[in-house]
């Protein structure tokens, strides 16, 4: 049987395995062949796994997810030779569900970035146009799914690292409610924001994988019990109240082609039976980015203190302990982690703490309250996921602030711990546009339902045109 990994959904692959129409080894071989053909150009994988005792649907994991016995770099030279001695809970749950691991995917260093250009192992390229970025930080996972190099994948999302690359590569990406997926064994970036989630071809695949990885974990005390995941079936949106936050849809920098594509998807909601209305998030969008770029770097500066050349990772020898630590960190970290460590350390330092970090924590409360108030009238909020389609490699890499702005629409809901689903809603300039669906905490089933109905109605072809 010929397997077209570009078209095959994870759910279809699961069906083929269950009906014994294909073996796990045949399935793995098909993905390996796709990897052999296309990974050299795209650079999706940092480490490939040659064999796995499981024989379920093949998966790729972002390289911030610890995998026992399989190198885990977080896209950094400081962890170049690091081989975890334990599995993260999400890797463990994928194994327990029988999924076979294909490999570890490229990421901006420590998941800090929006283009995967900050990886110490070179950028990943967008399967729709290799001159362009796949988004980030989880560009490796998104590009792998889009190019048929994995049936599905896991990413991690702090400011938009699942949603934004999914949008730029034409995938379905879920950033789950904070606390629904264990962070045990995830290379920490900003602990009050980090969340692992699925990157898939369809909304149903996404719900299936979210069902596998979510749920309370004794090893992560920030996790909670999660409502049972329902595979979406309905093709209408009857009874759903869809809110269109003005600021998230009219923010400066949203490309006309992106706005138009999103507008069409929102119109489609009404045709499918939803009640659509406008709402406001006056301060969430205006202050969200600034709030994020204080809180996330502050938490990062603390989390990245552990890379000291003592217990694991790179060590640059020196005559004294302090020189060893400082030299190791200078040699091991790339520009972006250094920038964020410096920014976060500054924001937390004596004399500046209240004005920066303290104030940002209060802005976070303001953002959470604004969303809470919007959800009194609406079940789901919609906006573009990214203000632009995939941009050219190198276009923003010299200007940190321009790069940070690419997350302006994904960050506000993240600050409030809300789930967000990005689904492809059309093309602009021949490149995928993502629609962001935001719900209240623990509303994943509603997002899947709305996403599925819209996906059916939109009929987006997830296979990049140049690979068809």
């Amino acid at each position: 049987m010929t397997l077209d990994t570009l078209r095959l959904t994870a759910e279809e692959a699961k069906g083929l395995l269950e009906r014994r129409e294909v073996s796990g080894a045949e399935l793995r071989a098909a993905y390996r062949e796709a990897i052999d053909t296309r990974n050299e150009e795209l650079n999706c994988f940092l480490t490939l796994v040659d064999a796995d005792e499981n024989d379920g649907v093949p998966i790729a994991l972002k390289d911030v997810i610890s995998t026992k016995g399989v190198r885990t770099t977080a896209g950094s030279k400081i962890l170049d030779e690091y081989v975890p001695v334990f599995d993260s809970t999400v890797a463990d749950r994928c194994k327990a569900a029988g999924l076979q691991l294909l490999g570890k995917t490229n990421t901006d260093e420590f998941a800090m970035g929006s283009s995967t250009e900050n990886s110490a192992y070179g950028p990943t390229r967008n399967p729709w146009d290799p001159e362009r970025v796949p988004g980030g930080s989880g560009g490796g996972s998104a590009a792998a799914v889009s190019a048929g190099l994995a049936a599905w994948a896991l990413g991690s999302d702090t400011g938009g690292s699942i949603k934004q690359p999914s949008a730029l590569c034409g995938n379905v990406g879920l950033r789950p409610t904070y606390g629904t997926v264990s962070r045990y064994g995830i290379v920490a970036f900003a602990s009050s924001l980090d969340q692992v989630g699925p990157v898939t071809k369809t909304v149903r695949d996404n719900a299936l994988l979210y069902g596998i990885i979510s749920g309370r974990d004794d090893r992560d005390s920030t996790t909670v019990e999660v409502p049972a995941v329902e595979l979406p079936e309905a093709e209408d949106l009857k009874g759903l109240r869809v809110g269109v936050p003005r600021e998230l849809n009219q923010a400066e920098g949203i490309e006309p082609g992106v706005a138009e594509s999103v507008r069409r998807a929102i119109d489609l909601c009404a045709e499918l039976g939803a009640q659509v209305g406008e709402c406001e998030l006056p301060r969430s969008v205006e202050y969200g980015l600034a709030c994020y770029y204080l809180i996330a770097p502050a938490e990062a500066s603390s989390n990245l203190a552990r890379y000291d050349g003592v217990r694991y990772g790179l060590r640059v020898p020196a005559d004294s302990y302090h020189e060893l630590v400082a030299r190791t960190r200078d040699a091991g970290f790339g520009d972006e982690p250094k920038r964020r460590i410096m920014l976060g350390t500054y924001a937390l330092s004596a004399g500046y703490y209240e004005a920066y970090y303290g104030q940002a924590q209060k802005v976070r409360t303001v953002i959470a309250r604004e969303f809470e108030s919007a959800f009194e009238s609406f079940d789901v909020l919609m906006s573009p996921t990214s203000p632009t389609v995939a941009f050219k490699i190198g276009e923003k890499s010299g200007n940190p602030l321009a790069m940070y702005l690419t997350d302006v629409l994904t960050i506000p809901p993240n600050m409030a711990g809300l789930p967000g689903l990005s689904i492809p809603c059309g093309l602009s300039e021949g490149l995928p546009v993502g629609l962001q669906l935001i719900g209240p905490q623990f509303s994943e089933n509603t997002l899947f339902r709305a996403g599925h109905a819209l996906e059916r109605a939109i009929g987006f072809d997830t296979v990049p045109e140049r690979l068809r």
Partner: protein
Amino acid sequence: MAITREDVLHVAALAQLELSEQEIARLTEQLGDILEAVGKVSELDLSDVPPTSHPLSVVNVFRPDEPRPCLPLEDVFANAPERDGDHFRVPPTGVAEESSA
């Protein structure tokens, strides 16, 4: 927000980063720009607003305080750059403090 070279050196010392001259120059400029942008948060009067440190209202997650097996020592040291018996080996800790004082 003007950031000086001295600010950068001070913060780099706090963050235990030994930066090159080129990095110091670049970060002095970039941190100034970024801090000016994120300083926007101070426009709002939020004196009555409580801070949020965590997105969920979860408090005090307890578990029974029972001993459980931990990683075997061989695993603990598996990635260690330098091991000395059951210890991580590092060079002397006092030298840098004396020389920079």
